[in-house]
């Protein structure tokens, strides 16, 4: 099958940031995203939610350029004061035109 190589950005963040992050993703050029509830523990430990340890995991498939823009924004706006981690993986997707 014909596949296209793109970037997948994964963000794991405290739940209060979900709306802020996802609206920013679309603004920066993402066409869609997937959010799942998740649990875990990190360097900050505590969350401003009733349930400690709850997080949201946001995944988005984008071009390399948009992936860079997303990481830059997350670094500046959220890394200093919030519990957020981010990483990028290279993915081969079908129907590559859906994502860029």
């Amino acid at each position, binding site marked *: 099958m014909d596949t296209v190589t793109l970037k997948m950005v994964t963000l794991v963040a*405290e739940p*209060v*940031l979900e709306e*802020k992050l996802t609206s920013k993703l679309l603004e920066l050029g993402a066409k869609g995203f997937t959010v799942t509830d998740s649990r875990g523990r990190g360097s900050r430990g*505590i*969350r*401003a*939610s*009733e*349930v*400690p340890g709850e997080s949201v995991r946001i995944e988005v498939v984008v071009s390399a350029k948009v992936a860079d823009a997303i990481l830059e924004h997350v670094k500046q706006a959220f890394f*200093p*004061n*919030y519990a957020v981690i981010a990483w990028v993986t290279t993915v081969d997707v079908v129907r590559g035109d859906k994502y860029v």
Partner: protein
Amino acid sequence: MEILKANLLSPIALAFALGIVTKLIKSEFSLPKEIYTGLSIFLLFSLGLKGGVELGHATFDSVAWPVVVTLALGCVTPLTTYFVLRVVGKFSVSDAAGIAAHYGSVSAVTYIAAMTFVKSQNAEPEGFMPTLLTLLESPGIHIALAIGAIKTAQPGQSLKAVLHEVLTARTMILLVGGLLVGLAMGEKNWGSIEGFFDTKGPVFKGALTLFLLEMGIVAGSRFGDLKKVGPFLLGFGVVMPVLHGALGTWLGTLAGLSVGGATVLGTMAASASYIAAPPAVRVTLPEANPTYYLTSSLAITFPFNILFGIPLYFQISQALHGGG
């Protein structure tokens, strides 16, 4: 002592204590999140409905002064909290404002516990108490967040988002919406759903007991953070509610509320929100340390009010009303 004992042996206080013990012995048990949410929806909507029906009976004269003192309390409590934390506790602007947002707002669960307690002491509170709860809910959060946002020079646009978030939160929809529905349907229609929603009925009391069990677990899970917050905040979490509780009870009495009503108003002023306030503070004041505001409101002030504060405010209220 008799009153304190009656409170400590009430089903809700015991269920709450069991929840704390559950966490202290490191049990994995907790209520499924959906059931916890479902119970809180039921409790809040019941309150709103019943409050609306009762509001239909109230005269303007009986409501006016209590409304005025409630709004005054909503403006005073975040300011006193903020200045005590800044001046005495030497907290940063963000931390002081973050904690003030919690103490300026109301814990709906503490309110429900107070309502149930005074009813059990045959001191029926005024029917319009849920109206006062909704009035006290949001000014405190906004005043405290505004102080924080202005002092740390952050853009004001997020305050509008916070206002929207607080006014459209679950608590407000269920309480204010319930009030309006209750007011519109009136006493006649209330009869058809009273068996389920009656705040004095067995269904409500059972749900409240189960809910307090979970709240004990939630509070207990924060106990580990108590050593992180330092002795000042530990003392603050007990002294501040007593001062605000006495002030609220006194103002309520001046405004003409009954023994039960003044107790409930005092309890509202004494309580600290931990459901509406934390996300609002987290988004608006990111530098404020969540360990401080969550631990003081949830692990110190909340258990203190449920177990000891409510009977104390009740006794203050009795004394102010010239009995005891």
